[in-house]
């Protein structure tokens, strides 16, 4: 990546930051302007992350490994702040921004008016998530985590209401406590190694003296707990279903990617810092990840069967998918990690689509069945100075509401439970296939396979039950109106899942390369530490 294209790396952070800053300067009532601005920003973000993925996947003569570092402020790598893009982060960026674009479109239908300043908060959330995927040192990771958390605190309160406020009280408290753990972990690691740059850490960890190893491991463990809270691992996950259920649907759909940020960091740090080359500290956390992951899955399965509301099912499904991902990361192995990445993408899109479809599906239901959080009145006086009589601008109302909703719902159910032929099935099949390729199939592998199949069954049962309740049972009230701007995004997300199914071959090849790059941290380290400074060699000639 040379010339101007190199600066693409920082755009996923800069674009949403600038757009939300500009938006704050305008009156909140200039809605069309804000919508247009955030829509254009999201389209640009998707374009940028596609371009980044393209470049990273293609490889080029100057960096065949497909990893690039961007030196902010042009300081050499271990001293300055550095952004890194490689296959894993490019893939996560595209996933985030596609989910962000569709969620934003959905929110334009009406949710962005249920409270003030939705658009700036939404874009700041994306900035935080994108930054967390791009950053190359753990303290900036903390900063971007705080950016995304601060935005999410605002978004979880979006739409107000008692349930949201008291759920967010728990959510904010837990996340502040997790951030303090995060800082503690960073401090311990810094005191042992003297660096915070991930690539530099990876070089220094094998050289840690035996006496300091326990200190380093406890630092890494404290740090890991902070991410595992975000990912929703079992004993630390009780806040998650309630919070996600209380959030407004577009916000909940974005939260589907936030639990994956925790997973991403675990994957990134455990492969770069605690991989096979890490000397004494190698893989010390794997055992914990495996069993905690299995416990999370079991808890999620019981949870899915125990709740009747769709939002609850979706929340517990987030836990199940976190459990599958963490267990697979704990078991490790290139083929399994590749399959896990496929599952990560597929399950994030599916959960996002489910959160979006829940609200239109339940809008038809009898009032008393509706969930407190979701059924909050949308057009209350929260919105200061909203012009009256603009409801007809929402868009074209489409016929055949029930057929479309039912179709989308079945689609989601198939994706979540992992039935053929959709991408959920391919992902789970790939994981099981990778497990069977082990020379000796351990009890742990069997447990993972069994729980994964059980979770599919549980999701199927729960979704069928909810589907019969909400869609099949004839109700007195006529189905509500459904605008095309609400159906479109759901369709788009499901279409991406179909695309993932059709293109499973190329996608799997990409994930294989990603897993190979993760298994060899030397590629990442080399890309960061040997990143050329701008103007160091070509500067004189350019002038």
């Amino acid at each position, binding site marked *: 990546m040379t010339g101007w294209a190199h600066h693409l790396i920082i755009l996923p952070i800069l674009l949403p930051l600038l757009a939300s800053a500009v938006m704050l300067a305008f009156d909140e009532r200039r809605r069309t302007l804000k919508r247009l601005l955030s829509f254009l920003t999201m389209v640009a973000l998707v374009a940028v992350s596609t371009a980044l993925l393209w470049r990273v996947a293609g490889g080029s003569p100057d960096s065949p490994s497909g990893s690039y570092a961007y030196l902010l402020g042009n300081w050499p790598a271990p001293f300055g702040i550095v952004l890194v893009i490689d296959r894993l982060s490019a893939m996560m960026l595209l996933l985030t921004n596609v989910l962000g674009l569709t969620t934003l479109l959905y929110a334009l239908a009406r949710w962005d008016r249920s409270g003030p300043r939705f658009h700036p908060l939404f874009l700041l959330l994306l900035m935080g998530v994108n930054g967390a995927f791009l950053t190359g040192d753990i303290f900036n990771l903390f900063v971007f985590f705080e950016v995304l*958390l601060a935005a999410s605190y605002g978004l979880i309160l979006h739409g107000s209401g*008692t349930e949201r406020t008291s759920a967010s009280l728990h959510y904010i408290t837990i996340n502040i406590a997790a*951030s*303090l753990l995060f800082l*503690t972990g*960073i*401090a311990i690691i*810094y*005191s042992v190694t003297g660096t915070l740059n991930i690539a530099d850490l990876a070089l220094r960890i094998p050289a840690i003296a035996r006496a300091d190893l326990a200190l380093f491991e406890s630092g890494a463990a404290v740090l890991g707990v902070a991410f595992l809270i975000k990912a929703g691992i079992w004993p630390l996950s009780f806040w998650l279903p309630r919070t996600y259920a209380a959030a407004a649907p577009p916000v909940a759909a974005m939260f589907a990617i936030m639990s994956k940020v925790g997973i991403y960091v675990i994957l990134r740090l455990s492969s770069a810092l605690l991989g096979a080359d890490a000397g004494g500290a190698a893989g010390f956390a794997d055992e914990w990840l495996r069993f905690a992951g299995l416990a999370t899955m079991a808890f999620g399965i019981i949870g899915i069967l125990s709740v009747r509301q769709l939002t609850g099912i979706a929340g517990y499904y987030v836990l199940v998918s976190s459990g599958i991902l963490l267990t697979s990361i704990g078991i490790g192995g290139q083929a399994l990690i590749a399959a896990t990445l496929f599952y990560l993408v597929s399950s994030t899109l599916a959960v996002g689509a489910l959160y979006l479809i829940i609200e239109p599906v339940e809008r038809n239901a009898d009032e008393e069945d509706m969930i407190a959080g979701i059924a909050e009145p949308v057009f209350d006086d929260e919105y200061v100075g909203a012009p009256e009589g603009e409801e007809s601008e929402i868009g074209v109302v489409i016929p055949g509401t029930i057929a479309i909703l039912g179709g989308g719902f079945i689609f989601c159910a198939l994706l979540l439970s992992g039935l053929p032929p959709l991408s959920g099935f391919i992902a789970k099949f790939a994981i099981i296939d990778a497990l069977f390729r082990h020379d000796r199939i351990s009890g742990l592998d069997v447990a993972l396979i069994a729980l994964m199949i059980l979770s599919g069954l549980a999701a199927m049962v729960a979704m069928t039950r909810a589907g019969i309740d909400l869609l099949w049972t004839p109700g007195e009230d006529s189905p509500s109106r459904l605008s095309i701007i609400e159906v479109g995004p759901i369709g788009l997300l499901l279409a991406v899942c179909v695309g993932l199914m059709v293109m499973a071959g190329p996608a799997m090849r990409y994930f294989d390369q990603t897993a190979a790059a993760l298994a060899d941290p030397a590629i990442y380290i080399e890309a960061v530490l040997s990143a050329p400074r701008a103007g160091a060699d070509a500067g004189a000639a350019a002038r």
Partner: protein
Amino acid sequence: MEIVLALAIGTLTASGLWLLFRPRTFQVILGLSLLAYAVNLFILAAGRIRTDAPPVVARDAASDPALYADPLPQALVLTAIVISFATTALLLVVLLASRGLTGTDHVDGEDGDQ
């Protein structure tokens, strides 16, 4: 010096944790603030404790790193202070909103023993 700092961090952490697990929202906020102080001191300690040593290298001084305190943890602490201050302020607003909406200052929005 080490023992004073260690005792301070330990006391703050213990009090913070105790308050964090109390049922009233205001106690929880105080607990989080105390924990944040403890963590900030801890970060400072992570850079090795030095007294009477400047963190910023003077322009004309000999560049012997042993003469200076580690500046990085001090920069990290500044960032951490700002962030924890902002999030605590936000939590305070949510606390007030929750108190107004539910009519109680219990963390669950309802008093369990009623």
